[in-house]
């Protein structure tokens, strides 16, 4: 098996240029792209997550590591596609209707991309119809809803209800998050999961797609 330690160090340091260079080198030495994901960047991102949980890394460190990983994915995604390998999953993400807070959703998007997910970011104040159209159009496995205030939480339920009415609720997993969201709120409205922060959002998304 190829030694991916240089690549992993670069990801842990959040050095995009070094990570891409290490990935290029590994590929030129014959490393398999899928191996590079499974044994190179995935364990490195898991370590980044662990360091965040342990309080050694903070949001800025998470972001630069995720960016380094994302850039490696840009390089290897075409190679993976040639081998028939799919992205970890496809997620449609947005802030619910009436709410304009986008930073929480942006962080979740950045870390999901760093985790190998393909993210379709619909932006802020997204109507239920727009969520539904994007999920159907992009064949997403997950839809992620974000909100900032208790006053915009009801829009999460409205969005879920719209998925039910459109007969799409069984075709997509719904995860929710944001400062006022709790697990019990997620249970009440029948979401499939709640993520407290961007790192746990990635774990949750992985669980929801079964990887």
């Amino acid at each position, binding site marked *: 098996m190829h030694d991916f330690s240089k690549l992993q160090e670069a990801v842990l340091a959040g050095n995009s240029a070094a990570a891409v260079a290490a990935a290029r080198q590994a590929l030129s030495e014959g490393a398999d792209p899928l191996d590079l994901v499974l044994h190179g960047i995935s364990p490195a991102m898991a370590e980044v997550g662990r360091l965040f949980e342990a309080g050694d890394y903070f949001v*800025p460190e998470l972001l*630069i590591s995720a960016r380094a990983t994302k850039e490696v994915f840009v390089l290897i995604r075409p190679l993976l596609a040639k081998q028939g390998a799919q992205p970890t999953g496809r997620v449609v993400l947005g802030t619910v209707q009436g709410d304009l807070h986008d930073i929480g959703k942006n962080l979740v998007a*950045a870390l999901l991309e760093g985790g190998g997910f393909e993210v379709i970011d619909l932006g802020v104040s997204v109507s239920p119809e727009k969520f539904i159209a994007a999920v159907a159009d992009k064949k997403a496995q997950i839809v992620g809803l974000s909100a900032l205030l208790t006053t915009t939480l009801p829009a999460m339920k409205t969005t879920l209800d719209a998925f039910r009415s459109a007969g799409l609720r069984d075709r997509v997993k719904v995860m929710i998050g944001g400062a006022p969201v709790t697990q019990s709120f997620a249970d009440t409205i029948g979401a499939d999961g709640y993520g407290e922060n961007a790192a746990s959002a990635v774990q949750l998304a992985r669980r929801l797609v079964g990887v």
Partner: protein
Amino acid sequence: MNSDDPLATESFQQLVVEPRLPEVLRFLGYPKGVFPPDPMKQSIEQVLTRALPGLEPRGTFSIYAVRAHTRRSLALGSETIAGNIGEFLHGASRVAVLVVTAGRGITELSTEAWGAGDSLAGWAFDAIGSWAAEAAADALTQQISSHLGADEGLTLRYSPGYCGMDLSQQRTIFGLTRPGSIGVSLLPSLLMQPMKSVSGLVGLGPRELVGVNLSPCDRCLQIGCHMRR
């Protein structure tokens, strides 16, 4: 003068806020006393330098005599504010209703950076905007203190959406002051625009009744909040 009218109303189109790295770092998610090593620290400092021209800290306040209060309500001007705020401000004879903003420019800088794939700068601009909104509220509170008489002090600042008042009180607050004068509006979802805005109340009254050195966080139940003071 109508008895419902404010005793004073002032708007400031250019409040002075002075960014200090340790404070900004807390909004970026670093705990108190933790400094990122270089090159991260340098990257953050660079974003801070780029952020400064994007900040437009503005604020407005109106001061009212307290018409009546109970533990669960506070009557100011023609409005009555509901919530524990009645108890929290019980020592105040007057109350300043305030709205501040850091302006929309800083959020635009953040959005641009995210769009360009620079997530670190996107996050840092956003955090600087949050810090600036709080700093603008502090600067405006400083201006309010010039209305204090001898032996008077200010209470802590309380905002709708925290434990003293429900978010629905945003409408009442907006009815009592002039956020339009500083370009802040309230959406039907009760969200203020620009995003980096803060509303609230601060009481003025005899120092022995109001001047207790509490932290607002002592009254808040979000124990895990990274902004806890």
